[in-house]
């Protein structure tokens, strides 16, 4: 069911004029028979920022790319996309070349791979001007000045130096700034921003989006902002379009969506995106509880260069039956810390204690024994399960390797574990490819528990999942903690999830643990400057102020 904007009042803030872009009955099918977009209507006014929100597979990216004519060759498109008097859906590739870059631009998803790795930054920015000459020829010097001006505009320091650099010499945030400079260089009327910051850290995300917002306002560019993150969407858009299963579920102004969501699916998304409704889980164990897992002065120096201290004097303890979260941005050393605690990596200095026992010096056999009680759940369930094996064999692997039970007992134990992670018994004979991402993560948890683990290290275990699936896995983790008294070390960059699951939180930055404390304290009254910056950069300002005013 699609909801057309024509049926309802246009957002009050915008004047009622002929839309800049009008999509009518757009349908995109792939040769394999799947319908990615099934009859969507969408309009875009000049200067308007519309967020296209949905989970993976909702058709949001396909919809946005069809506006640029960048669908794969196997896609069949029907319907109309009216843009300033032309129907983009029926345009030839040659005609499209004149529109792309000049009148409709793209800010892509993955800045890491979106610049040609073997060409310099300068040549890639200047390329837009070479492609669209518009009658006048610029001299080399003029072109160079223009490129420098653009790079300055998006807040890149030392722009002259950057001209000669290659993409691999720039950080992700800088690369995305370069891509924004390219997208805005000819001041297009419409910009498609396809998850422009989902690969970036929150603090970088904030600064990059600030630049993006400023330029869009300055040039009056209309933006289709594709994102899976409702919190980011509400912070930056005028209008929210919620997509699911290839159709539009909701299409209204931000305030209206926030105040009175109409679609049941939007309601659930908002619930999950809202700041922790319930207070952080009550600490099951008393503050004096013993440590299940403890780091004492952990240091990791990766070879070459003394300055390269990936982890620097990190100490903390995780109490029995509670959840401790390590938050931090990429490169902060949180995963390295987790791997040292797992004894997958040898610390340069410091001690690891598991249930009070020093395990720093364990040899191979000792580690094998350790892993019966201490287990790891990976970020990406796709690569964490051997694609060739059936689920029953994957879950039974620790049982077999540790010689824990006979054949009959093994089968029973697998069924019991499947039940514990809320998977039906018939999943046992499936292979990982046949399961959804959330189901695969459940299998990974079941395998971690198979040999009787009491402590789980969850390394970004929810990051690869959609919001609603995340919520289910979170619920499962909470349930398992209650029932089995499990201890969790939760590694995450997602403050929203951390706030919800943790009893205690540690904040890491550049290898150092800058602040630790109970969740409520860290989120309510952060002491360290970096913690404050992190919390401040966390998207969802409108959601939070809404929640505050509702209380």
């Amino acid at each position, binding site marked *: 069911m699609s909801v057309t904007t024509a049926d309802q009042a246009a957002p009050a803030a915008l004047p009622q004029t002929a839309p800049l872009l009008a999509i009518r009955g757009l349908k995109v099918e792939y040769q394999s028979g799947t319908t990615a977009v099934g009859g969507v209507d969408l309009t875009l006014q000049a200067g308007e920022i519309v967020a296209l929100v949905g989970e993976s597979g909702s058709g949001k990216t396909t919809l946005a790319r069809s506006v640029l004519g960048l669908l794969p060759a196997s896609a069949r498109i029907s319907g109309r996309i009216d843009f300033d008097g032309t129907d983009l859906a029926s345009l030839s590739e040659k005609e499209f070349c004149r529109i792309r870059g000049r009148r409709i631009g793209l800010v892509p998803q993955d800045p890491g791979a979106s610049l040609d790795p073997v060409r310099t930054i300068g040549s890639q920015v200047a390329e837009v001007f070479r492609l669209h000459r518009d009658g006048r020829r610029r001299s080399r010097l003029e072109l160079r000045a223009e490129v420098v001006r653009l790079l300055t505009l998006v807040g890149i320091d030392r722009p002259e130096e950057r001209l000669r650099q290659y993409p*691999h010499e720039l950080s992700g945030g800088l690369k995305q700034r370069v891509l924004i400079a390219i997208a805005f260089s000819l001041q297009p009327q419409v910009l498609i921003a396809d998850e422009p910051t989902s690969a970036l850290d929150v603090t970088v995300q904030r600064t990059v989006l600030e630049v993006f917002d400023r330029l869009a306002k300055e040039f009056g560019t209309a933006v289709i902002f594709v994102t899976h993150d409702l919190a980011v969407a509400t912070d930056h858009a005028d209008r929210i379009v919620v997509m699911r299963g290839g159709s539009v579920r909701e299409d209204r102004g931000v305030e209206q969506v926030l105040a009175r969501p109409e679609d049941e699916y939007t309601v659930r998304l908002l619930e999950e995106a809202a700041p922790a409704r319930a207070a952080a889980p009550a600490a099951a164990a008393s503050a004096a509880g013993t440590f299940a897992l403890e780091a004492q002065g952990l240091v990791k120096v990766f070879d070459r260069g003394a300055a390269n201290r990936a982890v620097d004097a990190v100490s903390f303890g995780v109490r029995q039956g509670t959840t401790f979260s390590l938050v931090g941005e990429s490169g902060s050393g949180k995963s390295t810390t987790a791997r040292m605690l797992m004894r997958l990596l040898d610390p340069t200095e410091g001690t690891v204690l598991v249930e009070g026992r020093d395990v720093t010096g364990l040899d191979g056999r000792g580690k094998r024994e350790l892993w019966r009680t201490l287990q790891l759940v990976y970020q990406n369930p796709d690569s964490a399960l051997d694609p060739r094996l059936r689920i029953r064999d994957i879950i039974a692997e620790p049982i077999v390797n540790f010689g824990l039970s006979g054949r009959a007992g093994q089968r029973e134990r697998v069924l019991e574990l499947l039940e514990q992670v809320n998977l039906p018994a018939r999943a046992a004979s499936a292979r990982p490819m046949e399961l959804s991402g959330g189901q695969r993560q459940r299998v990974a948890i079941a395998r971690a528990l198979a040999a009787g683990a009491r402590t789980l290290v969850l390394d970004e275990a929810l990051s690869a999942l959609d919001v609603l699936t995340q919520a289910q896995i979170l619920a499962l983790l909470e349930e398992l903690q209650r029932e089995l008294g499990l201890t969790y070390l939760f590694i995450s960059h997602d403050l929203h999830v951390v706030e919800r699951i943790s009893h205690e939180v540690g904040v890491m930055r550049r290898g150092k643990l800058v602040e630790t404390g109970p969740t409520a304290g860290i989120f309510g009254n952060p002491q360290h400057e970096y913690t404050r910056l992190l919390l401040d950069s966390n998207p969802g300002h409108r959601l939070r102020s809404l929640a505050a005013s509702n209380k």
Partner: protein
Amino acid sequence: MGRYVAQRIGQALLVIWLAYTVIFLAVQLLPSDPVTIFLSTDSAVDQATIDNMKRQYGYDQPLLVQYLAQLGGLFTGDVGYSLASGEPVALRISGVVGSTIALALSAFATAVVLALAVVVVATLTRSALLRKVVLNLPPLFAAVPVFWLGLVLLELLSIRWGVMSLFPDGSFLSLAVPVFVLGVHVSAPIAQVLLKSIDTVYNQPFIDVLRAKGASASWIFFRHALKNAGGPAMTITGITVGTLLAGSVITETVFARSGLGAVVLQAVTTQDVPLVQGLVLLTASVFVAVNLAVDLLYPLLDPRILKSNGQGSPRALAV
């Protein structure tokens, strides 16, 4: 950069030394010494002659002395003497190597042109049928035996149509046909790798960004895709040196051309061990030199290689 260059040169020298050592050891694995083997076909030779010849060629020395003496000879360009003709191996080879190099180089140029043509057509054509046909050419080229293609062309051009002589006479066709035969053979791996890496390039997000900038298909192909795919193609090009040399030997035989081919076959059939040693060492050196050049040129195409230095070697698998 300096580190990269030094590392590559060191590796090249190491491989040549290793190749030399492996060959030396392989010779020791033979049932007896080279002179005895060489003369074994001739029953009239007595032991005194053998011993005399062994002394002349230095095969009576202790192994370590032989090893070091021959190794030292490498630096002065002295790679021993042919048992069959008594000529220095280096002279024997350098006398004929010119025509083989000419054949190999022109065949290589032909192969590159053929491979590029295949890739350009396959990437830029709008006809699905033409693309399909062109994509099937490299596997076909790879499957055609050099000697067979040569014979079939000889049969057609010389015998059936009489436009080319059976033996090399300096006419255009008698030069061009062998070059073409060898070129077709060598173009297959180059085209296959180029197609594959072009395919990888086209699956990367930056191609979409280029299209979104308004770049046309040919702009993307010539200005971006080719340079990105160039690295792997250059690497395989270095590896085809062996194919090129082996192909030259066969092509020369088919077209009755003089060159390295005849020397190789003669050396092997008469069991002229020092000559074989010299030939193996020569081809290995050419291979190493070409691949060193490829390695040194690589950063010009893809500067990332300088950064990834030293990260290639894996630690032991165990936890």
